[in-house]
């Protein structure tokens, strides 16, 4: 179990990236949803031992992350949002090396293991190629592979499916959920669908703090009958935004739609929608107060 207590981090330029973050995360897939710049990556890096916080603590299965980063790294699988590679080294060699670092020292076991992993991420064919010559998608898959090595107990993936085609994305989701059975998996994303598809628990993260936390479906359900939609003209948007709690404005077949939140039916041409997690997400980042 990962438990984060009172985590704070302010950058020298004054940005408060983490603001008293508290989280308890059990085995299974945990979705961390938040807009760009919310501090997700800071949180991920901090959990992944790459960054210090100003105060607070992180504990995982009895490991104090700040004091025993070495111990955590042994059970950690981390896929950062933006990462690079040694350009002159082949994927196979690099994964073998990482497997070694993750403690797999039996040579034949390791070779078989890495081969299997390469196959799982569909890179087996390209295993001899230098990483520098990989395309963006291939590199992402390599990143996934390295994060999965050594059956980690804590897996942190930051925007993992960026740059993957739908086929690869599904493949990855399957891999991830397989692992999620006996590990804590934190999936940081701004793609709501990923959370819906995969996660048993989630939190919405905004401006450095956890806005809300819970089961995706339950959170979605908490807004049942309170989300309404209307098709409007472009010029009207401003007016609606001042009159209603507009969660999102989006185009459908070229027509502008707004989803609004209201305690009761606003009439005026609005209709109740079959609300989704997306609505909840927008709702929670618009209204910092918890429901």
């Amino acid at each position, binding site marked *: 179990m990962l438990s984060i207590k009172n985590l704070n981090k302010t*950058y*020298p330029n004054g940005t408060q990236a983490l603001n008293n973050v508290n989280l308890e995360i059990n085995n299974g897939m945990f979705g961390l949803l938040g807009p760009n710049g919310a501090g997700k990556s800071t949180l991920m*890096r901090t959990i*992944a*031992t*790459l*960054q*210090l916080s100003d105060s607070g603590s992180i504990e995982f299965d009895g490991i104090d992350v700040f004091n025993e980063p*070495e111990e955590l*790294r*042994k059970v*950690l699988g*981390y*896929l*950062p949002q*933006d*990462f*690079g*590679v*040694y*350009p*002159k*080294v082949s994927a196979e*060699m*690099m994964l073998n*090396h*990482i497997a*070694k*670092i*993750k*403690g*797999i*020292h*039996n040579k*034949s*076991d*390791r070779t*078989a*293991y890495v*081969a*299997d992993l*390469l*196959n799982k991420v569909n890179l*087996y*064919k*390209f295993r*001899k*190629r*230098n990483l520098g*010559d990989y395309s963006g998608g291939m590199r992402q898959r390599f*990143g996934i592979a*390295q*994060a999965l090595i*050594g*059956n980690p107990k804590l897996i942190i993936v930051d925007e993992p499916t960026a740059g993957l085609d739908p086929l690869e994305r599904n493949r990855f989701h399957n891999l991830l959920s397989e692992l999620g059975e006996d590990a804590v998996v934190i999936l940081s994303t701004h793609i709501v669908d990923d959370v819906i598809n995969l996660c048993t628990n989630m939190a919405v993260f905004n401006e450095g703090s956890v806005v809300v936390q819970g089961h995706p479906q339950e959170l979605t359900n908490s807004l049942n009958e309170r989300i309404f939609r209307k098709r409007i003209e472009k010029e009207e948007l401003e007016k609606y935004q001042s009159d209603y709690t507009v969660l999102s404005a989006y185009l459908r077949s070229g027509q502008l739609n707004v989803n609004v939140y209201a305690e009761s039916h606003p009439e005026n041409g609005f209709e109740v929608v079959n609300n989704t997690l997306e609505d909840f997400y927008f709702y929670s980042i618009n209204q910092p107060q918890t429901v």
Partner: protein
Amino acid sequence: MKEIYLFELKYRLRRPATYIYLFLMFLIPLLFAVFEKSNTAQYTNSPNAIMGVLGGMSILCLFFYAAIMGVAVYRDEEHRTAQTYFTFPITEKNYILGRFWGSFTIVTFLNIAAVLGAMFGFAIGIFLDRPDYGTYTSFNIASYFYPFVYLLTFNAFFIGSLFFGLMTFFKRMPILYLGGIVIFILTIVSSRLLANLDTEWLSIYVDPFGNKAQNFIDKYWSVHELNTTQLSLTGKFLLNRMIWLGIAIAIFVFTLLRFSYKGFLSSKKKQNTKEGKEVYSTNNPLPKIVQVFNSKARRENLWSLSKIEFLSIVKETVFIILMVIGIVIAGFIAYQSNQIYGTPSMPLTRYMVAQIAGGISLFSVIILIIYAGEAVHRTRQNKTFEFYDALPVSNNTLYLSKIISLIGVAVLLTLISIVVGIIYQTVNGYFNYELGMYFIFNFARIFPTYITTLLLAFFIHVLVNNKFLGHFIVIVIYIGLPLLFTLAFKTSNPLLIFGGTPGGFLSDLNGFGHYLVGEFWLNTYWVLFTCILAVIGKVFWNRGFFSSGKERLRVAKQRFSGRTIAYSLVLVFAFASVGAYSYYNLKVLNKLEDGNYGEKVNADAEKKYGKYIGKPHIQVLDLKAFIDIFPEERRVEAKGEFKVVNNFEVAIDTVLMEVKFPIAATRITKVIYNNVELKPFLKDTVYRLFMYKLPKALQPKETASLVIETKAITKGFSADSETAVLDNGTFFTDAIFPSFHYDRALSDNGVRIKNGLEKLDYLYPPRTDSIALKKNLFNEDANYMTFEATISTAKGQTALAPGLLTKKWEENERSYFNYKLEEKSDYFFSFVSADYEVKKDSWTAPSGKKVDIEIYHSEKHNRNLEYFIKGIKISLDYNSKNFFEYPYSVIRIIEFPAHSNYAQSFATTIPYSEDFGFVADFSKAEDYNYAFRVTSHEVAHQWWGHIVTPSKTSGANIISETLSEYVSLMTMKKEYGENGIKSFLKNSLDTYLSSRQFSFKPERSLMNVEIADYIWYRKGSMIMYDLQDVIGENKVNAGLRSFLEEFKYNEKGYYATSEDLYKAIYKVAPDSLKYKVDDGFKEIVLYENRVIEAKTKELKSGKWETTFTVNSKKIYYDDAGKEREIDTKKNLVDIGLFGEDVVNDEKVTIKDPFYFELKWLEPGDNKFTIITDKKPLKAGIDPYNKLIDRNSDDNLKSIEE
């Protein structure tokens, strides 16, 4: 475009780095200028010196120019702004122009800073009032302005457009390094080319920075010209500047025209096609993996990561290119430097290791610094760290892997030096590879410097988070600090100069000698020092993300615990211990003082003992020397039984003894005078001068017996190379015994004034000084004396002293030799011991006396012995026949180790450096055979120096050196004909002309020369050759014979002066040629002869009539090199017509004269019409360059038909 230009400017001006660059560009020339020093009459801030300071900046500027110009466009790639930026409505040309001129403006600011720095530096220099730094001239803005424009600005434009273009098209940082290094190579190559007479003209084309080209142009300038001539864009300098400006413009225009947004954005990715098509298949179920994190696993991880880091370096194209360039340069340097006087030396392993290291190690250091930076920044730059740093890999592994990979690179580089050396030898047909020497040299001497370099660079890069700045700081520490220490503190303390070790040399006789010990300790010292840096670096290693310096410190504090503290303590302790031990050896057991200290000791001594100069002192009549050499302990014990006399007119009641032996710990252990042991009443152990009171004053003409015992011991290891006594190859002189008179030790007037001593116009007394005329120039402690030596050494070695070997025996496992000199000699003896083989021959004197010739040489040196023997025989013959019969019945050449490169002639005995001909390759006849020539010169000293000894007056040394040089030249003419003379005169002329500007004092005439060897050897040989050419060799020799007769063996009671020699030659010269004797001896004369035009036509008779005009000009100069007057009288000069050069029997190219005659030429144009049988191709005035002429190329001209 203006917008982009301003943006670029503003961007730069807002970067703190720009100000750091500005500051450094100001500071560095400032320091150079402050410490600029002139030992000559050249002003410290002469236009030439200012050009040197500013021109010298160009290579340092590479960094800044690259950092500013190189990244102007690259920035848009790096920050990924290109995609958006290029969609804005800016044309490609405006974009490029804006970026280029914007950054060029900044670079110009930097150059202005450099100029201001130099101005301030020289101003500070004047203000500091340091007489030993030379005199200053008044400020002249032009002296700064011209170098600023022609050097700094031109170079900035060239380097700027090169880097700008490279980065615009290649978009890769390593290209910058590569470009920088190619430029760097060009400067190395051009300075190498300058060192060789045949290739120096190429520097005009090769030198991208212009200062080497200018060095070639002003090579023959006098001090006066250096002081007054401003850099001007004319002639060859113009050519050089135009070539490189042209290249710069071409690159710039190319960049401007070829740049396109599309091209910039497209990325060329090579697709690797060698992928296997195989599909993953496995029948076995996946094994259950086990994860272990024990220490063995950690070691394996370390190894594995080191391998990845290592491959990341060596697989890089740039690395490979750098290696190839390094190898090529090493080969080039080996080829260029493995020669003396233009004659190649054998590619011995001891040469190869040094020369290859000279080329490769410089590159290796650059490579290591670059890749230390890369190792620090690699995972950051390629962002691997974002996941890698979260892997269960310890900080140790992460950190050490980079260092190990760099050490791996260092090992690779070291091995490459070895391989290149062996290949070079093989290619040159030399197969005596001394692998042991290769490995010891490279791994004990070169490798540690690689380690310290890479650790230092690594440390700096860890601390400084900016690659350019990091590199720059490393360079400053690596080159700047030692320079500062040497310049500002005049220290050579290897404990203070980064990477410093006590010197040493390699020798075929002495191998590595005793030097490896000191080197080992100092290398350990510096390696430990950098290891401490490495530990500090580890604490600050950047893992993951850190947001502020404070956080970094927090992490550092956290990391600095437990084992790290323990390691640090152990390292600090080890470093301190090794440092203390080295200090004890260098400074306590031995002497190690900075330059100022030595000056002060000498000055104090002169203040105390100056009053004894010229005062009566005892002189030696007979010496029986007993010398015991202990080579393995590098120790000497000596006993001298002297018979001394008072040759003066007053009684002598005290004896002064000054120890002059080069080994610091030399002591006088016993002094017995007329059987009474004396104790000194004055003991100056710092200057090593002692004074003894005689029990009874020694009356005029009275003699006494004096026994002196001395000991010279070496202790531990010293910063001094202590070459006097070596394991195999001891060579020292009679300085093992103290000198009985005091002599001044400081001659530089700047240093003298600084230390409160009077300025000396002349070092020696004038020729009218009757006391000085009675002094023997080489040693005034005796006139002519008798000598006998019993010398012992380790068994297996041969010990030698001047004289006939009378006895040889072995006793107590030691070998003893007794030598006795047959004839009187001046007090000038050598003692030598090593393991020798002997080559014997003999020569019979005209009187029928047989003289044994013996060459004592290393068993490895059998190659060139014939040339030494030939040199001895011909010189004995020439001198005996023309002047006086050789007085002894033996003559020897004895090899000594390669710590210096000279030969020295003692009576019957000539110690000769092993580098001075024994290992040369004289297989090509056209190469200058300096073994023959130097031997002939040294043998001639048996007459000129030993039979006729110069007096201790101004100019007298020409009797010894110029006449020996003359004899050597005459024997050369006899043996090698025109070819021998040609190479001889060419070298003499070049050395004389190019040394004038370095003359320590105002340039003296031949008759007044005191310490300038380029005058008594080089100018002297030119003058003497010309004189014998016009007067006749026999006449000149007759004059010299009567000169010898008059002054031989000091029979006359006083010694010869340069004036006596001048008179001897003046007497034999016909009246019409007396002007040549005056010109040669008393004046500084340069000719400016050239052929104006030449035309030929065929006559009906089939003969050819050639009409040609030559211009003759002879200019007298004053001692500062200022033109004094142009001669208006006629001069006797060679003129000639030549056909195609012919190749003689020895495959040497020589001229083929159809007509050749000495003619009296009027100043100005002279027209001749000559008829020859064959058609001439070239017309010439002084075509063999016998006269001193700064431009000898225009002495020959092709004839038009």
